[in-house]
């Protein structure tokens, strides 16, 4: 047991060391969502109609989604290393070590989660600029939800990267699958007022629930309506499930015998 914890810790720490040695990745994962947030809230603010017709403007609406986008980008950037590990041979060295496959996956996913959450928390500090003043309890809750979402997204990203031969392929998946996952999570526009088919897609998006929970916490006390949002209980359960299923998939993939 102690050995397993040590192995997970060593692999997770390695993820962080690697990430921070590649400064362009840090900056890219952090800066792009913040730029989106600044430009979109400036450009779309005037034409935005808040859900339920009342509440704060678009800068506040887009803020939780921006934080989640940082989780997504960091998860992607950190799991791209799965492909590099395979190509450069590091992975096979890990696979011949007396470490359960679950520890290998967990080390990678927890390392990625820790990175994603720490980057997201940095951006959380910008909340006052969006006109949001969540209390300490809401902030603590938000960090917890960010950890759950970050875990699920890193595990999902791990599943995609595991079988990929090239980072180019990963970028393609990111464009056609992971970005829409974010776009349709209620991050960018509210489900309230969307046509029925779009509402169905939003409801089917597992990311919707984490974003909704985060929105409830960050926008609490801002006068925002929760029209069209799934309930807090459903949001929590769905997000936990999202993490469990993606981690289960990652584990199954990693346990499958080598080619």
């Amino acid at each position, binding site marked *: 047991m102690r050995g397993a914890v040590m*192995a997970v810790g060593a*692999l997770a720490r390695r993820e962080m060391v690697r990430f921070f040695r590649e400064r362009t990745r840090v900056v890219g994962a952090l800066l792009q969502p913040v730029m989106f947030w600044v430009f979109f809230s400036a450009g779309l603010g005037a034409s935005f109609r808040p859900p339920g017709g009342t509440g704060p403007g678009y800068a506040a609406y887009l803020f939780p989604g921006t934080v989640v986008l940082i989780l997504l980008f960091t998860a992607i950037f950190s799991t791209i290393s799965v492909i590099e590990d395979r190509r450069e*041979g*590091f992975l096979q060295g890990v*696979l011949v070590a*007396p470490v359960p496959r679950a520890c290998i996956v967990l080390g990678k996913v927890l390392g990625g989660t820790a990175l994603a959450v720490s980057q997201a928390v940095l951006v959380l500090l910008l909340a006052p600029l969006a006109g949001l003043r969540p209390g300490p309890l809401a902030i603590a809750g938000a960090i917890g939800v960010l950890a759950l979402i970050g875990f699920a997204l890193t595990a999902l990203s791990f599943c995609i990267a595991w079988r990929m031969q090239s980072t180019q392929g990963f970028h393609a998946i990111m464009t056609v699958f992971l970005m829409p996952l974010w776009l349709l999570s209620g991050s960018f526009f509210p489900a309230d007022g969307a046509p029925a088919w779009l509402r169905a897609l939003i409801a089917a998006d597992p990311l919707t629930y984490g974003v909704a929970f985060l929105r409830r916490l960050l926008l609490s006390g801002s006068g925002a309506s929760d029209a069209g949002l799934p309930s807090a209980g459903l949001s929590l359960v769905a997000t936990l499930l999202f993490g469990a299923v993606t981690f289960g998939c990652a584990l199954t993939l990693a346990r499958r015998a*080598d080619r």
Partner: protein
Amino acid sequence: MSRSESAPPAVLTEGLAHRFGERQALAGLDLIVREKELCVLLGPNGGGKTTLFRILSTLLRPTSGKALVFGHDIEREPDAVRRLIGVVFQSPAVDRQLTVLENLEVQGRLYGLTRSALRRESREMLQRLGLLDRAGDRTGTLSGGLLRRVEIAKGLLHRPRLLLLDEPSTGLDPAARRDLHDLLDQLRSRDGVTVLMTSHLMEEAERSDRLAILSRGRLVALGTPADLKAEIAGEVVVITTPDPEALREGVRRLSGLTASIVDGTVRFEAQDGHALIPRLAEAFADRVTSITVGRPTLLDVFVRRTGHRFLGDGAGGDEGQAA
């Protein structure tokens, strides 16, 4: 081969087979590697040596048959096997973003080394491999030879009883190769480590205690280099010529002997090769660059047992020739 020893051999395989779709990479291999010996797996590319290496290092499951490492089944007790083996991959399994020492730290943690053991062992390995002054360098900045040394240090960190190396000499210059061989000798004599390595270099095979030649997934020869060479009676004649095909035909007509073409030279075994030289020189004077007669080498054993004319790729063949 079947002696009743109490201690299990370092490696024992029985009917070991692996199939990649249509291709039978290993076809029922029976092999025993004794404790503390240096066993070299020699074979042409695609002969099955890398497949065997991957099975023994627990990366690949055999399609049928079994393999034991010090009595532990690689399929049923992979973790026990993993603790006993150190694996040195052909393409070093290092993280190029991390320093040499950081790579060893990750490795040590994966093998459950305590902090103090990790510090002690990594220091010793760095010293033995001449890496102490590079400990803080990122591995991505190191040369191929140094990377290989880091990889070996990683493989030895947890004091394995069996060291598996896949083509460890690839990309090493002669001096680095000599260092590697010295290290392997030292590991066996001082630490009692068993070494099983794949190679396509005759020079390396020559240094082994026993040599296993794999071809088309089968074991075609197993024995000490001396024993294997002894089975070739007489001498070996090697003729360098611009037109090997024509010369081979000429040799057949002149002496009735069947020659092989190996890396552009004509080679054949003859009871008294030296007596043939004047006749050959006279008959083919215009087409022959050089003729040598010598004792059989492992290359001759290899050619005879595998029917292969080339060892691995072109580069490998050249090195084999020079041995």
